[in-house]
């Protein structure tokens, strides 16, 4: 594949960004739920 480093890099970055955002969002929700219960 020509320009493989850019193409594969792009798809990997996109996947990683979405995954990290999703995991982080889940963690933020769980933290807020815990704090909300304790408050």
């Amino acid at each position, binding site marked *: 594949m020509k*320009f493989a480093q*850019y193409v594969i*890099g792009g798809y990997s970055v996109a*996947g990683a960004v*979405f995954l990290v955002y999703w995991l982080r969002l889940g963690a933020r929700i769980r933290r807020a739920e815990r704090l909300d219960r304790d*408050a």
Partner: protein
Amino acid sequence: MTLLNPRISRVLGVAALVSLVALAVFGLFIAPPDAVQSDAQRLMYLHVPSAWIAYLAYGVTALSSALYLWRRTRSPVWDRLAGASAELGVLFTAMTLVMGSLWGRPVWGVWWAWDARLVTTAVLFFLYVGYLALRRVPAPLETRAKRCAIAALVAFVDVPIVHFSVDWWQTLHQQATVFTPSLNAHIHGVMAFTLWLGVLAFTLLYVYLLDKRYRLETLEEDLESKELAKAIEERVQGAGTTAPPEHVEVGIGR
């Protein structure tokens, strides 16, 4: 409190994941390479849907903000929805800029150009980062919601500027292709399918994440109200039972 039924949210999450995997398979292996740009064009399947979904996210923020400002429809739901959608808009704009940069390097020879489309998109990104920062400024909920709604509507002015920048100025970035009938662009069937698959996958992901982000917005608002009520209660009890301290030390970092 969520926007969607938890079961629907789960189904949506699975559908988003499946369509994203299908997009990767089609974008990397099944769609043919472009006649001019070769494989570098495969980044279009991420770049273009990201930009469209960012527009959608900012559109939802602007509409929700307008509905909040209009007295007849004023509800905290619109404020929460605006905040939740703006964060996703920033996420998809960042994705657009990064994918565009990665695509620009092999095709244009540069990571970045001071081109009208690129600059207005970067401005859009920073406008909504500012909007998200404004949401974090402590204030009564209604005051915060009102000023954020105004800021969101002001920031939205940049969306049509981004869209039409390629027509209004001479740009390195190409003009709109898919929706310009005069160009009579013939797109290979598999390429067109992959592009629309990207739009579908990112739309599903957007709706799924919007539901989650809305839940977080609701929880943070509840927590803020509870903490405020608790602080007022403590203050009232303190004032009723104890004398105010004679000497109070204040300082940063306490």
